Protein backbone atom coordinates (compact mmCIF):
# COMPACT_ATOMS: atom_id res chain seq x y z
CA UNK A 1 0.00 0.00 0.00
CA UNK A 2 1.49 3.40 -0.93
CA UNK A 3 2.30 5.94 1.77
CA UNK A 4 -0.62 8.06 2.92
CA UNK A 5 -0.82 11.66 1.71
CA UNK A 6 0.22 13.81 4.68
CA UNK A 7 -2.02 16.87 4.95
CA UNK A 8 -1.78 20.07 6.98
CA UNK A 9 -5.05 21.99 7.34
CA UNK A 10 -4.48 25.75 7.69
CA UNK A 11 -7.72 27.61 8.40
CA UNK A 12 -8.69 29.98 11.18
CA UNK A 13 -12.34 28.92 10.99
CA UNK A 14 -12.74 26.51 13.88
CA UNK A 15 -15.69 24.51 12.55
CA UNK A 16 -14.27 24.20 9.03
CA UNK A 17 -10.82 23.19 10.23
CA UNK A 18 -12.07 20.58 12.70
CA UNK A 19 -14.77 19.30 10.36
CA UNK A 20 -12.36 19.01 7.44
CA UNK A 21 -9.90 17.09 9.59
CA UNK A 22 -12.57 14.54 10.46
CA UNK A 23 -13.78 14.37 6.86
CA UNK A 24 -10.33 13.86 5.38
CA UNK A 25 -9.37 11.27 7.96
CA UNK A 26 -12.22 9.19 6.58
CA UNK A 27 -10.14 8.63 3.43
CA UNK A 28 -7.82 5.64 3.81
CA UNK A 29 -4.99 7.30 1.83
CA UNK A 30 -5.09 10.60 3.77
CA UNK A 31 -3.40 11.44 7.05
CA UNK A 32 -4.01 14.84 8.62
CA UNK A 33 -0.69 15.50 10.35
CA UNK A 34 -1.47 18.95 11.71
CA UNK A 35 -3.76 21.95 11.96
CA UNK A 36 -2.81 25.62 11.81
CA UNK A 37 -4.94 28.64 12.65
CA UNK A 38 -2.56 31.28 11.25
CA UNK A 39 -0.23 31.56 8.29
CA UNK A 40 2.75 31.78 10.62
CA UNK A 41 1.77 28.58 12.36
CA UNK A 42 1.37 26.89 8.97
CA UNK A 43 4.93 27.81 7.95
CA UNK A 44 6.34 26.54 11.25
CA UNK A 45 4.38 23.28 11.07
CA UNK A 46 5.44 22.72 7.47
CA UNK A 47 9.10 22.89 8.47
CA UNK A 48 8.43 20.53 11.36
CA UNK A 49 5.95 18.03 9.87
CA UNK A 50 6.86 18.10 6.15
CA UNK A 51 3.32 17.45 4.84
CA UNK A 52 2.75 16.54 1.19
CA UNK A 53 -0.17 18.94 0.85
CA UNK A 54 -1.22 22.07 2.72
CA UNK A 55 -4.91 22.94 2.58
CA UNK A 56 -4.50 26.71 2.75
CA UNK A 57 -7.13 29.31 3.58
CA UNK A 58 -6.30 32.84 2.43
CA UNK A 59 -7.78 35.05 5.14
CA UNK A 60 -5.95 34.20 8.34
CA UNK A 61 -4.55 36.33 11.18
CA UNK A 62 -0.86 37.01 11.85
CA UNK A 63 0.21 35.99 8.34
CA UNK A 64 -2.30 35.44 5.54
CA UNK A 65 -2.37 32.43 3.25
CA UNK A 66 -0.71 34.28 0.39
CA UNK A 67 2.37 35.21 2.39
CA UNK A 68 2.46 31.80 4.05
CA UNK A 69 2.42 30.13 0.63
CA UNK A 70 5.37 32.25 -0.51
CA UNK A 71 7.35 31.33 2.60
CA UNK A 72 6.52 27.61 2.43
CA UNK A 73 7.35 27.31 -1.28
CA UNK A 74 10.65 29.13 -0.72
CA UNK A 75 11.68 26.99 2.24
CA UNK A 76 10.07 23.69 1.17
CA UNK A 77 9.50 23.67 -2.62
CA UNK A 78 8.31 20.05 -2.61
CA UNK A 79 5.27 20.84 -0.44
CA UNK A 80 2.13 21.32 -2.54
CA UNK A 81 -0.26 24.11 -1.63
CA UNK A 82 -3.97 23.68 -2.32
CA UNK A 83 -5.94 26.86 -1.69
CA UNK A 84 -9.35 26.36 -0.08
CA UNK A 85 -11.12 29.67 0.17
CA UNK A 86 -14.34 31.67 -0.02
CA UNK A 87 -12.59 34.20 -2.30
CA UNK A 88 -13.72 34.17 -5.92
CA UNK A 89 -11.82 37.30 -6.93
CA UNK A 90 -9.28 37.06 -9.75
CA UNK A 91 -6.82 39.11 -7.74
CA UNK A 92 -6.44 36.46 -5.05
CA UNK A 93 -6.54 33.66 -7.60
CA UNK A 94 -3.65 34.91 -9.70
CA UNK A 95 -1.63 36.04 -6.68
CA UNK A 96 -1.90 32.60 -5.10
CA UNK A 97 -0.82 30.89 -8.32
CA UNK A 98 2.13 33.26 -8.63
CA UNK A 99 3.06 32.51 -5.01
CA UNK A 100 3.35 28.83 -5.93
CA UNK A 101 -0.04 27.27 -5.20
CA UNK A 102 -0.78 24.08 -7.14
CA UNK A 103 -4.53 24.28 -6.84
CA UNK A 104 -7.48 26.52 -6.04
CA UNK A 105 -10.76 25.20 -4.67
CA UNK A 106 -13.69 27.27 -3.44
CA UNK A 107 -15.40 26.40 -0.18
CA UNK A 108 -18.56 25.99 -2.21
CA UNK A 109 -17.09 22.79 -3.69
CA UNK A 110 -18.48 19.32 -3.14
CA UNK A 111 -16.50 17.15 -0.72
CA UNK A 112 -15.62 14.76 -3.56
CA UNK A 113 -14.08 17.60 -5.56
CA UNK A 114 -11.88 18.59 -2.64
CA UNK A 115 -10.72 15.02 -2.11
CA UNK A 116 -9.96 14.67 -5.83
CA UNK A 117 -8.05 17.98 -5.76
CA UNK A 118 -5.89 16.86 -2.83
CA UNK A 119 -4.94 13.64 -4.62
CA UNK A 120 -4.19 15.57 -7.83
CA UNK A 121 -1.85 18.13 -6.28
CA UNK A 122 -0.16 15.45 -4.15
CA UNK A 123 0.84 13.79 -7.43
CA UNK A 124 2.32 17.04 -8.70
CA UNK A 125 -0.64 17.94 -10.90
CA UNK A 126 -2.56 21.20 -10.91
CA UNK A 127 -6.20 21.37 -9.84
CA UNK A 128 -8.29 24.45 -10.45
CA UNK A 129 -11.94 24.81 -9.52
CA UNK A 130 -13.79 24.92 -12.88
CA UNK A 131 -14.99 28.52 -12.63
CA UNK A 132 -11.46 29.66 -11.72
CA UNK A 133 -9.88 27.57 -14.48
CA UNK A 134 -12.14 29.36 -16.96
CA UNK A 135 -10.73 32.70 -15.80
CA UNK A 136 -7.20 31.43 -16.31
CA UNK A 137 -8.02 30.33 -19.87
CA UNK A 138 -9.67 33.69 -20.57
CA UNK A 139 -6.58 35.47 -19.26
CA UNK A 140 -4.33 33.31 -21.44
CA UNK A 141 -6.45 33.87 -24.54
CA UNK A 142 -6.59 37.63 -23.98
CA UNK A 143 -2.80 37.55 -23.71
CA UNK A 144 -2.60 35.81 -27.08
CA UNK A 145 -4.79 38.49 -28.62
CA UNK A 146 -2.65 41.28 -27.29
CA UNK A 147 0.73 39.83 -28.22
CA UNK A 148 0.66 40.24 -32.03
CA UNK A 149 -0.43 43.87 -31.92
CA UNK A 150 2.24 44.67 -29.34
CA UNK A 151 4.99 43.26 -31.57
CA UNK A 152 6.65 45.62 -34.05
CA UNK A 153 5.40 45.01 -37.58
CA UNK A 154 8.11 43.94 -40.01
CA UNK A 155 7.96 44.32 -43.76
CA UNK A 156 8.14 41.13 -45.88
CA UNK A 157 11.67 42.09 -46.94
CA UNK A 158 12.77 42.65 -43.34
CA UNK A 159 11.34 39.29 -42.31
CA UNK A 160 13.16 37.64 -45.20
CA UNK A 161 16.45 39.25 -44.23
CA UNK A 162 15.91 38.38 -40.56
CA UNK A 163 15.33 34.76 -41.55
CA UNK A 164 18.57 34.69 -43.56
CA UNK A 165 20.56 36.35 -40.76
CA UNK A 166 19.20 33.71 -38.39
CA UNK A 167 20.22 31.09 -40.94
CA UNK A 168 23.84 32.18 -40.61
CA UNK A 169 24.21 34.01 -43.92
CA UNK A 170 26.63 36.96 -44.03
CA UNK A 171 25.58 40.40 -45.31
CA UNK A 172 27.34 39.78 -48.58
CA UNK A 173 25.69 36.35 -49.04
CA UNK A 174 22.27 37.81 -48.31
CA UNK A 175 22.88 40.57 -50.86
CA UNK A 176 23.81 38.01 -53.50
CA UNK A 177 20.85 35.80 -52.62
CA UNK A 178 18.32 38.63 -52.81
CA UNK A 179 20.07 40.44 -55.66
CA UNK A 180 20.43 43.67 -53.72
CA UNK A 181 23.46 45.66 -52.64
CA UNK A 182 25.32 44.90 -49.37
CA UNK A 183 24.58 48.45 -48.19
CA UNK A 184 20.83 47.80 -48.64
CA UNK A 185 21.16 44.64 -46.55
CA UNK A 186 23.03 46.66 -43.93
CA UNK A 187 20.30 49.30 -43.99
CA UNK A 188 17.58 46.64 -43.46
CA UNK A 189 19.58 45.12 -40.60
CA UNK A 190 19.88 48.51 -38.93
CA UNK A 191 16.13 49.10 -39.30
CA UNK A 192 15.42 45.65 -37.87
CA UNK A 193 17.52 46.31 -34.78
CA UNK A 194 15.88 49.70 -34.28
CA UNK A 195 12.36 48.29 -34.64
CA UNK A 196 13.03 45.35 -32.37
CA UNK A 197 15.10 47.35 -29.90
CA UNK A 198 18.06 45.00 -30.37
CA UNK A 199 21.75 45.83 -30.58
CA UNK A 200 23.64 42.88 -32.04
CA UNK A 201 23.40 40.29 -34.77
CA UNK A 202 23.31 37.61 -32.06
CA UNK A 203 20.21 39.22 -30.53
CA UNK A 204 18.58 39.24 -33.97
CA UNK A 205 19.22 35.50 -34.30
CA UNK A 206 17.75 34.85 -30.87
CA UNK A 207 14.68 36.98 -31.68
CA UNK A 208 14.13 35.06 -34.93
CA UNK A 209 14.43 31.76 -33.07
CA UNK A 210 12.00 32.82 -30.34
CA UNK A 211 9.45 34.01 -32.91
CA UNK A 212 9.58 31.04 -35.23
CA UNK A 213 11.40 32.89 -38.01
CA UNK A 214 14.22 30.43 -38.55
CA UNK A 215 14.62 29.34 -42.17
Amino acid at each position, binding site marked *: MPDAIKILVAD*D*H*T*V*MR*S*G*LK*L*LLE*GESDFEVVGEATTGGEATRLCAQLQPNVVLMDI*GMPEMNGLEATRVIKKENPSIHILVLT*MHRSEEYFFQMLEAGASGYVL*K*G*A*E*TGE*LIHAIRAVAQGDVFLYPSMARRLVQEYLSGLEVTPSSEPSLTPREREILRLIAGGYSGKEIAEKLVISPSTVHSHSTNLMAKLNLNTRHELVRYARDHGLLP
Partner: protein
Amino acid sequence: MKISIVFVIWTNPLFLESIRALLNHPEIQLVGDSSDVSQAQKEITSLRPNVVIIEGNPDGNPIDSETLPILKSGPRVIQMNMGDNEIYIFQHQHRTLVDAKDLLTIILEKGDVE
Protein backbone atom coordinates in the same frame (compact mmCIF):
# COMPACT_ATOMS: atom_id res chain seq x y z
CA MET B 1 -29.83 10.34 28.25
CA LYS B 2 -31.33 13.38 26.58
CA ILE B 3 -30.89 13.44 22.83
CA SER B 4 -30.69 16.73 20.96
CA ILE B 5 -32.42 16.56 17.60
CA VAL B 6 -30.67 18.75 15.05
CA PHE B 7 -31.58 19.98 11.57
CA VAL B 8 -29.12 21.83 9.29
CA ILE B 9 -29.90 24.45 6.64
CA TRP B 10 -26.85 24.86 4.47
CA THR B 11 -25.49 26.70 1.45
CA ASN B 12 -22.06 25.12 0.93
CA PRO B 13 -21.73 21.32 0.83
CA LEU B 14 -18.44 21.46 2.73
CA PHE B 15 -20.20 23.28 5.57
CA LEU B 16 -22.80 20.53 5.83
CA GLU B 17 -20.19 17.77 5.67
CA SER B 18 -18.03 19.47 8.30
CA ILE B 19 -21.02 19.90 10.62
CA ARG B 20 -22.12 16.32 10.00
CA ALA B 21 -18.64 15.09 10.95
CA LEU B 22 -18.57 17.24 14.08
CA LEU B 23 -22.05 16.20 15.25
CA ASN B 24 -21.10 12.55 15.42
CA HIS B 25 -21.95 12.35 19.13
CA PRO B 26 -24.10 9.88 21.10
CA GLU B 27 -26.34 12.66 22.45
CA ILE B 28 -26.92 14.34 19.10
CA GLN B 29 -29.14 13.08 16.31
CA LEU B 30 -28.96 14.85 12.97
CA VAL B 31 -32.45 14.26 11.61
CA GLY B 32 -32.29 16.18 8.38
CA ASP B 33 -30.82 18.91 6.26
CA SER B 34 -31.78 21.08 3.35
CA SER B 35 -30.28 23.78 1.18
CA ASP B 36 -33.75 25.15 0.47
CA VAL B 37 -35.28 27.26 3.24
CA SER B 38 -38.91 26.66 2.19
CA GLN B 39 -38.36 22.92 2.10
CA ALA B 40 -36.51 23.16 5.42
CA GLN B 41 -39.50 24.90 7.05
CA LYS B 42 -41.77 22.01 6.05
CA GLU B 43 -39.33 19.39 7.30
CA ILE B 44 -38.73 21.24 10.57
CA THR B 45 -42.48 21.37 11.19
CA SER B 46 -42.62 17.63 10.63
CA LEU B 47 -39.42 16.55 12.37
CA ARG B 48 -39.61 19.01 15.30
CA PRO B 49 -35.86 19.36 16.01
CA ASN B 50 -34.61 21.03 19.23
CA VAL B 51 -31.87 22.82 17.36
CA VAL B 52 -31.63 24.23 13.84
CA ILE B 53 -28.21 25.18 12.55
CA ILE B 54 -28.34 27.73 9.74
CA GLU B 55 -25.38 28.49 7.49
CA GLY B 56 -25.73 32.21 6.95
CA ASN B 57 -24.25 34.64 4.52
CA PRO B 58 -21.20 36.36 6.09
CA ASP B 59 -22.53 39.70 4.80
CA GLY B 60 -26.20 39.07 5.57
CA ASN B 61 -28.41 39.50 8.63
CA PRO B 62 -28.18 36.70 11.21
CA ILE B 63 -31.95 36.22 11.07
CA ASP B 64 -34.01 37.34 8.10
CA SER B 65 -37.60 37.02 6.93
CA GLU B 66 -37.00 33.48 5.68
CA THR B 67 -35.50 32.17 8.88
CA LEU B 68 -37.75 34.04 11.33
CA PRO B 69 -40.66 31.56 10.93
CA ILE B 70 -38.25 28.75 11.83
CA LEU B 71 -37.26 30.56 14.99
CA LYS B 72 -40.93 31.13 15.87
CA SER B 73 -41.70 27.45 15.41
CA GLY B 74 -39.77 26.65 18.57
CA PRO B 75 -36.26 25.26 18.12
CA ARG B 76 -33.11 26.98 19.25
CA VAL B 77 -31.52 28.49 16.15
CA ILE B 78 -27.75 28.61 15.77
CA GLN B 79 -26.60 30.76 12.89
CA MET B 80 -23.02 30.67 11.66
CA ASN B 81 -21.08 31.11 8.44
CA MET B 82 -17.89 29.99 6.75
CA GLY B 83 -16.33 33.44 6.78
CA ASP B 84 -15.61 33.91 10.47
CA ASN B 85 -15.90 32.27 13.88
CA GLU B 86 -18.94 34.27 15.00
CA ILE B 87 -21.94 32.25 16.11
CA TYR B 88 -25.40 33.64 16.81
CA ILE B 89 -27.81 31.80 19.09
CA PHE B 90 -31.52 32.61 19.03
CA GLN B 91 -34.26 31.25 21.22
CA HIS B 92 -37.88 32.22 20.70
CA GLN B 93 -39.83 32.53 23.97
CA HIS B 94 -43.55 33.09 24.35
CA ARG B 95 -45.35 33.93 27.59
CA THR B 96 -48.76 35.24 28.60
CA LEU B 97 -48.92 38.20 30.94
CA VAL B 98 -51.21 37.69 33.92
CA ASP B 99 -50.15 40.80 35.76
CA ALA B 100 -48.44 43.96 34.55
CA LYS B 101 -45.67 43.25 37.03
CA ASP B 102 -44.82 40.18 34.94
CA LEU B 103 -43.41 42.53 32.32
CA LEU B 104 -41.01 43.99 34.85
CA THR B 105 -40.05 40.51 35.98
CA ILE B 106 -39.22 39.53 32.40
CA ILE B 107 -37.21 42.70 31.82
CA LEU B 108 -35.26 42.21 35.02
CA GLU B 109 -34.55 38.52 34.34
CA LYS B 110 -30.93 37.67 33.70
CA GLY B 111 -30.39 36.18 30.30
CA ASP B 112 -28.07 33.31 29.44
CA VAL B 113 -25.30 35.71 28.50
CA GLU B 114 -24.34 38.67 30.68
